[in-house]
């Protein structure tokens, strides 16, 4: 099918079967054992340091990334941390856990990558959204690791389509770009399936906490609520990440922001300015460790 040749006034349909997508999700590889174990440890309120350090040390590549980050200029302790245990002491268990997860998911993202998405831009946006979500969560005393994880994975549903149905993914992307529409509007118009829902399926398959899967499902439509939710956090974090324009795509655009979510988060102009600076700074540091040699310049 070549949707680009379709008349502009007609909306072509692209066959993406929900059952087939559900099967795709079930066929995804599990997360590495070490990541599952670390996730489990992070959920505990009194995680013993030794358990965490011992589990992390089972994966040498992850351990190296953790040490790189702990020794980065961001923490002002350049080249003084030589062990995973020291890194835990410096960074704190929860922060370290999220970084380990991010490093592990880098590998998973690359396995899922298909043809249509620009994976580097996708990855940079995901990291930026994760950092933004964590910083917003911190302002509200919310679960920072959960916010970081949800931000990192908020668009993973797009990766699923890109990986398993690359021609359809390319057609959706081309249709959106030709009309300068947000991707989610194009996928809704063409397939009736939303990547937020697919992302929820993926994260349920990977046994992430319901708080995280719900936030991913609602990141485009956080809905009405009286209390701030993790979906609010990821929704606004996504908007800030687009606004900061760090993905490096010409077609970047700030999306519409849900008024209710913004008001629940009570972000002022001054507070937003502080957030933007903090997000950009932390993004550059994290990007340098997670994607060495691929930082923006």
């Amino acid at each position: 099918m070549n949707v680009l040749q379709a008349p502009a006034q007609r909306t072509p349909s692209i066959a993406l079967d929900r059952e087939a997508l559900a099967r795709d999700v079930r066929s995804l590889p599990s997360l590495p054992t070490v990541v599952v174990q670390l996730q489990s440890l992070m959920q505990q309120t009194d995680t013993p340091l030794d358990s965490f350090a011992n589990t992390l040390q089972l994966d040498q590549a992850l351990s190296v990334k953790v040490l790189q980050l702990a020794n980065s200029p961001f923490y002002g302790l350049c080249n003084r941390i030589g062990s995973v245990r020291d890194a835990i002491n410096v960074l704190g268990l929860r922060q370290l856990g999220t970084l380990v997860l991010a490093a592990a998911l880098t590998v998973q993202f690359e396995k899922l990558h298909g043809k249509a998405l620009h994976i580097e831009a996708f990855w940079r946006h995901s990291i930026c959204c994760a950092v933004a979500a964590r910083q917003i969560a911190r302002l509200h005393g919310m679960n920072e690791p959960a916010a970081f994880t949800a931000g990192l994975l908020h668009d993973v549903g797009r990766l699923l389509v890109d990986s398993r149905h690359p021609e359809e993914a390319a057609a959706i992307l081309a249709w959106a770009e030709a009309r300068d529409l947000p991707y989610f509007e194009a996928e809704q118009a063409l397939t009736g399936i939303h990547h937020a829902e697919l992302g929820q399926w993926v994260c349920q398959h990977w046994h992430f906490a319901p708080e995280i899967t719900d936030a991913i499902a609602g990141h485009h439509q956080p809905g009405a609520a009286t209390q701030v939710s993790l979906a609010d956090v990821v929704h606004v974090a996504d908007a800030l990440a687009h606004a900061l324009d760090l993905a490096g795509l010409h077609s970047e655009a700030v999306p519409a922001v849900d008024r209710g979510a913004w008001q629940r988060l009570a972000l002022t102009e001054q507070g937003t300015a502080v957030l933007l600076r903090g997000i950009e700074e932390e993004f550059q540091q994290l990007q340098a460790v997670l994607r060495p040699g691929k930082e923006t310049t």
Partner: protein
Amino acid sequence: MTSLAPAPLLPHATPTVAPGPMAPAPAAAGQTAASALSTSSAASAASTTSNVSTTATGDAPGTPDPAAQRLAHLFRRVSASQVPPELQRALYAHRGVAP
């Protein structure tokens, strides 16, 4: 088949708007958030080809400002009611573009 290869990445440090086949048209209806921010500023024109401003870097009026052009480009899809003014003002200040 039209090529679907990803577009080249833009260097962030020097934000620019590169007109091309995917260059967007301003919103067909309604006022864009960029144009609503100010009627006498860099953000006043959503056009990516004629944007001019007085920037925080001290450029003279009439000098095309890539940062202002890029910001207008970023806000091209949303109307003023779709994006919090706090966010927009904070972003313009963050990029050193006068409101």
